[in-house]
């Protein structure tokens, strides 16, 4: 087995035992990237090999093999980094190099993890296929004609293809879990406030949450140990103690109460996906868990509420891209107002413009109560649904997505159909809960994702339940054939 195929945990073990060096890992990673990147195209900016190798040698020379030292990773290009441009896959920020680093990445840097570059995404995280990148498409490693999902599509594809052992992505309405499901990897959206948002370019501030994409649940626990925790720079970051997430691995799940909401198994979910998740539920019963049907009646209102709240916040968050201080500026404008308008017209894609218009319209004073405020009330009801179910259950299990990865170009001109991809992931963001997607089956060679939803700050139980499933199945071990001659 080659080094690029290993998990973070496996790499850590080998480094600790002095079997391998960081330099060797990095070399293997570059070899893999050279092999498949032309096909997958998950990176927007890739670090210079010479620099990274030098960095790896320095870390090797330190001779302290703790934590993530010497382990390569990459970031969705929404995390601000001072050594790589941060584009959000937009022409607006094509050449933008921040002077600061996102808090979540600072922690990884302090561990001496090696940042290899920035990964493709839908522009400003708006999209479910990574087709909305201003730079290029990213392909699903399992089927190059298919999308990797989005908006963290680059992150999921890179991990699935073995280009990187782990990556960080963000999830506003499913942007981390849906691509993880499409690419057959693990994606965890932590509780809102668990991982600092500082330095993560905002799409919808009350919903955005950063999290890891990894090859298995054990790695998710390892990465969460490093990135979770209170940050005084983020007012919504919560000062709740961070447990050692690896203690939830290899635990018995006898008596664990699992609820599966009937609303998440409706006709919009394909039979193959339903079957895979139902089989997984059977597996849980075999493992001693108590599995029962539950109801989340406000589910059908979650998606419309989301598509009012997220664009409203986005319309304000993206207003700072006005060409005045950074990013793209139209230099032909005759006055300042035209400069604003023309810069924004030229540098945002249609999906971003569509959502800015949605959001602007729903916040207009004569629409506010009918749209934005009503959506906030729905949000409360959706949250109450979960609170009620979590009185009796430890975990909620559902499909992550209604279908497996769809074909490139198939849905791009049907925004509403595209929005439906998020139908089972969005309620989790509205409620601020942790949600994790893990592989649970295949259909026509395409991975299927199962979503585990937990109580606030109870990522531990998701890791426990996820790992128990992983230990008794092999889905997470399957690898796409990409790059194999």
């Amino acid at each position: 087995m080659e080094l690029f195929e290993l998990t973070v945990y496996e790499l850590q073990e080998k480094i600790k035992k002095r079997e391998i060096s960081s330099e060797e890992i990095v070399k293997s990673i570059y070899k893999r990237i050279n092999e498949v990147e032309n096909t997958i195209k998950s990176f927007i900016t890739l670090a210079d090999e010479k620099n990274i190798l030098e960095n790896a040698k320095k870390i090797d020379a330190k001779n302290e093999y703790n934590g993530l030292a010497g382990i390569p990773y990459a970031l969705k290009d929404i995390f601000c980094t001072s050594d790589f441009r941060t584009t959000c896959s937009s022409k607006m920020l094509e050449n933008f190099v921040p002077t600061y680093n996102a808090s979540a990445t600072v922690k990884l840097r302090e561990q001496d993890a090696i940042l290899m570059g920035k990964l493709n995404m839908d522009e400003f995280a708006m999209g479910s296929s990574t087709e909305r990148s201003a730079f290029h498409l990213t392909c699903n490693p399992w089927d190059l004609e298919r999308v990797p999902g989005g908006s963290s599509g680059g992150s999921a594809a890179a991990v699935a293809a073995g280009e990187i052992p782990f990556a960080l992505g963000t999830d506003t309405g499913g942007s981390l879990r849906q691509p993880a499901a499409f690419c057959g990897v693990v994606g965890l959206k932590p509780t809102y406030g668990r991982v600092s948002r500082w330095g993560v370019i905002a799409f919808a501030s009350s919903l955005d949450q950063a999290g890891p994409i990894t090859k298995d649940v054990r790695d998710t626990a390892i990465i969460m140990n490093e990135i979770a925790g209170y940050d005084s720079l983020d007012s919504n970051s919560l000062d709740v103690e961070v447990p050692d997430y690896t203690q939830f691995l290899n635990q018995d799940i006898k008596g664990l109460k699992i609820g599966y909401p009937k609303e998440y198994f409706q006709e919009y979910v394909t039979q193959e996906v339903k079957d895979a998740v139902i089989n997984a539920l059977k597996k849980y019963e075999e493992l001693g868990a108590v599995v029962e049907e539950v109801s989340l009646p406000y589910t059908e209102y979650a998606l419309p509420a989301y598509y009012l709240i997220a664009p409203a916040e986005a319309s304000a968050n993206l207003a700072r891209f006005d060409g005045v201080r950074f990013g793209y500026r139209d230099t032909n404008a005759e006055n300042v107002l035209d400069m604003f308008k023309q810069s924004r017209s030229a540098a945002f894609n249609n999906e971003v413009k569509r959502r800015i218009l949605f959001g602007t319209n729903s916040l207009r004073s004569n629409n506010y109560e009918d749209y934005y405020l009503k959506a906030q009330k729905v949000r409360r009801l959706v949250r109450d649904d979960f609170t009620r179910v979590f009185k009796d259950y430890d975990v909620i299990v559902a499909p992550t997505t209604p279908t497996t990865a769809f074909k490139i170009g198939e849905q791009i001109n049907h925004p509403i159909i595209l929005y439906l991809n998020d139908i089972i992931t969005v309620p989790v963001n509205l409620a601020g809960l942790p949600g994790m997607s893990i592989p649970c089956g295949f259909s026509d060679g395409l991975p299927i994702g199962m979503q585990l939803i937990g109580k606030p700050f109870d990522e531990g139980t998701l890791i426990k339940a996820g790992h128990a499933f992983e230990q008794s199945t092999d889905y997470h071990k399957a690898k796409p054939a990409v790059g194999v001659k």
Partner: protein
Amino acid sequence: MAYETVIGLEVHVELKTKTKIFCGCSTDFGAEPNTQVCPSCAGFPGTVPVLNKKAVELAVKAGLSLNCEIANYSKFDRKNYFYPDLPKAYQISQYDYPICGKGYIDIDISGESKRIGITRAHLEEDAGKLVHQGSITTTTSSLVDLNRSSVPLLEIVSEPEMRSGIEARLYLEKLRSILLFAGVSDCKMQEGSLRCDANVSVRPYGQAEFGTRVEIKNLNSFKALEKAIEFEAKRHVDAIEDGEELIQETRTWDDEKQVTKSMRTKEDAEDYRYFPDPDLPPIKLNEAFINDIKENLPELPDEAQKRLVEKYNLPNYDASLLTMTPDVLTFFDECMKEYEDAKVVSNWMMGELTRLLNQNNIELSESKINPEHLINMLQLINKGTISGKMAKTVFEEMFNSGKDPEAIIKEKGLVQISDEETLLATIEEVINNNPKVLEDYKAGKEKAFGFFVGQVMKATKGQANPAIVNKLLKEKLNGE
């Protein structure tokens, strides 16, 4: 027909914090452009605001000083609009849940007290500043200075309960003195830490509904506020009398021409699309926090005024002037530690001191005079070392140079001559030199006496003790 002017004021006060309201940048005034800026207050992508607790504390302190209800729950909202000096393209402000609710302040109008209601006071961040190359209309490029961006402001909105430019000025002066005493702001209008907009309308007396309202922006002095309102009220009355229709608009005050000018009409008014800022959790204050601030409030102008009247028997008028700023009151209180006659101190402060401050256009803290010197000077008058007239010269010199009165007297040779023998010699000389006036005096012309006094003063270069001169002269003239 007789008309009534209706005025409400919106006052922006910069809170006295060391750092900005949502980041750690300094709020010092007058720094080089863009030297007090970080990615957060420059609105860079990925940055999020973190609330400065001190700003909340000062807002509560201000609210309590203005008799406001303090909200246990308040929140921040985004006020959206595009402008090059607004880095995030929205201002973080408070919309429907301000930190301070209803309150009031009392003003004195020719001896009568009038209560002016405060509608609310809310926290917000300031915007940056544009520096136009040339004038705003002709400039081809403008520069952005973000030093002020995210400086904490408290916007204090009054009820429309003022009825003249003078009332508005008195309200603003009283508001300023309260905020100064509370220690929440420097309230320097010239540095923009106190800014005022006025909403003005007129209506026939007795009419319940308001007339068409005009907002006058950025009034940067008490005088400008008063003048602009008087001008605007007259303009409205003239328009109504001439049958012209007034439009709701925003105007500015042209201090040079002493007129208001139109800035924009209501049709251009923006919809700010307020909504709760998702980056900032609501502010929840408990009673203990509020009570703690309440119990530690310093003495405020109204209390201080009452104290001066009761303790020193000063007229209300004096007491109100002595409590305009904490500096003035402290000066007075310091004097009273060493001196018993409050009215004398008050007279010097309201008279000479105020005259010199106005003449030099400075605040008391910027002058060099101190209470100890004033007391020394008053004691020198009492001892007869200097006359009251000489004291004015001494006072001005103390004000300008900060020297003690003895040094000034010595330097200027201002010692009063009270020695009877010396004075008698001069008196005899003056009488001898003016035999004609002596005749007049003997013929009963009172004026002649004054002439002799004047001549003695002249001969002694003003240093003769006038009381002794009077006494000796009378003896001399009547004795012969």
